[in-house]
């Protein structure tokens, strides 16, 4: 396996590549703990534990280092953050208690706010906004339920979802600068 991603000295001091506000933005998100990241000593336990790190363009430990160096462009453009299975094995095994999987969620939030997200994420979010449910229940499933003696599916509160989404403005993330594919 080739791991050819390098962080060069030039990049570290290249102010176009670094965004010093990036870390502030990341660690202002709810439940993203910067204190934990500071203890990362690049042991690569996270990368070794990840069942699919071989398929990542950046290894989890490299991503942790790049956050420390504020290398926003590399981090929010990598495929690794979206391939993360969220299985939490890396976070569970980290000897320094870095909240790696949680930090990945924060990175996905920032990538999304920059218009960088997979199409499936956009479709899923739109479905919840429109229907209150991620997957709609059809007449076919209602019949299935009737045959099994199950009650009709309790309706979800579509208006509540709309109120919450609108108050936060989450759907606006997808309208402007849409690069989802």
């Amino acid at each position, binding site marked *: 396996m080739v791991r050819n991603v390098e962080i060069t000295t030039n990049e570290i001091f290249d102010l176009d590549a670094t965004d010093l506000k990036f870390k502030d933005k990341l660690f202002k*998100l709810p439940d993203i703990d910067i204190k934990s990241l500071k203890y990362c000593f690049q042991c690569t336990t996270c990368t070794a534990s990840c069942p699919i790190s071989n398929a990542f363009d950046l290894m989890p430990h490299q991503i942790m280092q790049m956050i420390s160096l504020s290398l926003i462009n590399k981090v929010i453009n990598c495929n690794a953050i*979206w391939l993360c299975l969220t*299985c939490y094995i890396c976070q569970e095994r980290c000897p320094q208690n870095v909240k790696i999987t949680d930090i990945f*969620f924060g990175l996905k939030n920032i990538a*999304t706010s920059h218009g960088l997200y997979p199409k499936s994420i956009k479709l899923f979010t739109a479905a919840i906004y429109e229907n209150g449910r991620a997957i709609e*229940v059809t007449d076919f499933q209602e019949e299935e339920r009737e045959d099994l003696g199950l009650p009709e599916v309790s309706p979800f509160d579509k208006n509540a979802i709309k109120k*919450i989404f609108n108050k936060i403005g989450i759907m606006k993330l997808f309208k402007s600068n849409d690069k989802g594919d």
Partner: protein
Amino acid sequence: MRYLYYTGCTIPARMNNYDASARQVAKALNIELIELQNAVCCGTVNIKSVDIKTWLSLGAYNLALAEKDDMDLVTLCNGCFSTLKDSKHILDSKSNLKNEINEILSETNLIYNGTIKVKHFIEVLYTDLGIDFIKNKIVNPLDNLKVAIHYGCHAIRPSDVANLDDPENPKILENLTRITGAKPIEWRFKDQCCGGPILGINEDLSLKMVRNKFIGAKEAGADCFITICPFCAVQLDVMQMKVEQKYNEKYEIPVLYYTQLLGLALGINPELLGFDLNRVPVNFI
């Protein structure tokens, strides 16, 4: 025993065999399940990826709704379990954030206080009822059935949130399986993710991951998989034929929810346990 019951999105839309068998098992064990009304989708990892604050608000909404009744909230789905428990874990430890989320919730006239408890249905069986209680009700032991147990990551990790079992070497499902007479077996790839979360992002990789499961279970001589997560069941059961076609291989390993296995052992009519909806035919009933 009475519980509020939240089935989420996937189960009523795709996995009515899980809902049916859980309700049948609950009835047989005198557990009353009262469905949470006017809930919303939990948001799961997808909304958490888009915007953590929105995800927390959906979690808080469902929790606040459930707090109106004086019962614990029970879920069958690992995704809902993880989201609800994680939301609670975060909101209860950060009062500023809780106030901020309550401000968003005020749009819906709800307020989250933090009094609710969230439980996975297997936790109700294992902790609230207990092994001995259930063991006494077994009338149809499934002796000689070899099962490959598959927990699903979010039931046990992150362990400080799930707080259900050992994050690397869980035993709850093994113990619950043994009382049915069935034998949990050791098998390769048991503790790995099923690949489900990336099915919509990289299908090839996702199917490659679940293929490992089929190979591991087959070589260990498993008669079936046992799972407690509808997303893992999508991978193991719904996608099994697709993987067989893609790789030109045959596995034919049935995938049962734990509640279906227990239902059989409790002597419940298999028709009521939804076996017709299992994608890989369950040939040993």
